[in-house]
């Protein structure tokens, strides 16, 4: 059975980079869904089952922090493992996202190997 990852980032090129890492990391069965902001992400999550979410923070319309708040408030969505991938590496933000339930936090820049490693760790923690 294939599993699904949702990549939430307002940059299409960053989504492309992440998608490539996932594909090359040996997660052959992974289906990559994408969203450009938190609101789009919620629409995806309410229409299909997703196994793991990778989300940026700074996004228009609905940012990553608000997305996490929405996930935490939804019984059906709060248990989905979340990996935050963001340029914001401030302590305040990291603490807040962890408090909201993020299982991992990867600050940009990151190498493909760092992303793979952190994604594997979050999948392990969430399973």
């Amino acid at each position: 059975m294939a599993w699904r990852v949702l990549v939430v980032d307002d940059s299409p090129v960053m989504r492309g980079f992440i998608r490539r890492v996932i594909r090359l990391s040996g997660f052959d069965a992974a289906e990559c869904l994408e969203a450009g902001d938190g609101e789009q992400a919620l629409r995806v999550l309410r229409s299909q089952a997703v196994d793991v979410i990778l989300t940026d923070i700074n996004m228009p319309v609905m940012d990553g922090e608000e997305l996490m708040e929405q996930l935490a408030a939804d019984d059906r969505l709060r248990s989905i493992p979340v990996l935050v991938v963001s340029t914001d590496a401030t302590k305040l933000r990291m603490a807040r996202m962890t408090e909201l339930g993020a299982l991992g936090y990867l600050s940009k820049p990151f190498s493909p190997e760092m992303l793979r490693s952190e994604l594997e760790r979050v999948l392990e923690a969430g399973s």
Partner: protein
Amino acid sequence: MIALDRQVLLQTLDAAVNETMEAMFFDAAAPVREGECCAGADMVTVCLWFHDAVDGEFMLAAPLPTAMALASGFMGVDNEQVQRRDAEQIACELANIICGSALSRLEPSSELRLSSPMATPRACATGDDVIYQHYQLLDGCLSVSLRID
């Protein structure tokens, strides 16, 4: 509030640029302290604004061939497969990462808000209130400017 210590800002920028180049663009960046290395008829220039703990503007510029080469590295494709639009989008993401990384180091305990970067016909900012730095890459060059209000 960040005190405008030029040395600290330069070093922080250097670290952010170098780390980003190595991790995601498979390139290296060495600061060129004296003179200009980054000019050309066709430049890709992007800018973004930041606010909350500090307010200001960040800009990044590269000659088109450099921007195309950086895009090809990031995307993992040959140069011939890169369009100008790709180069601009990736330059925007590069600016986003460098600026975010630098500001997170400078103000680790504060909130950070960055605007979406966009391509601009303007040249990189210069002036006494601007930190302006050129970098030599393995193949090409890059300029960045950071203005804190």
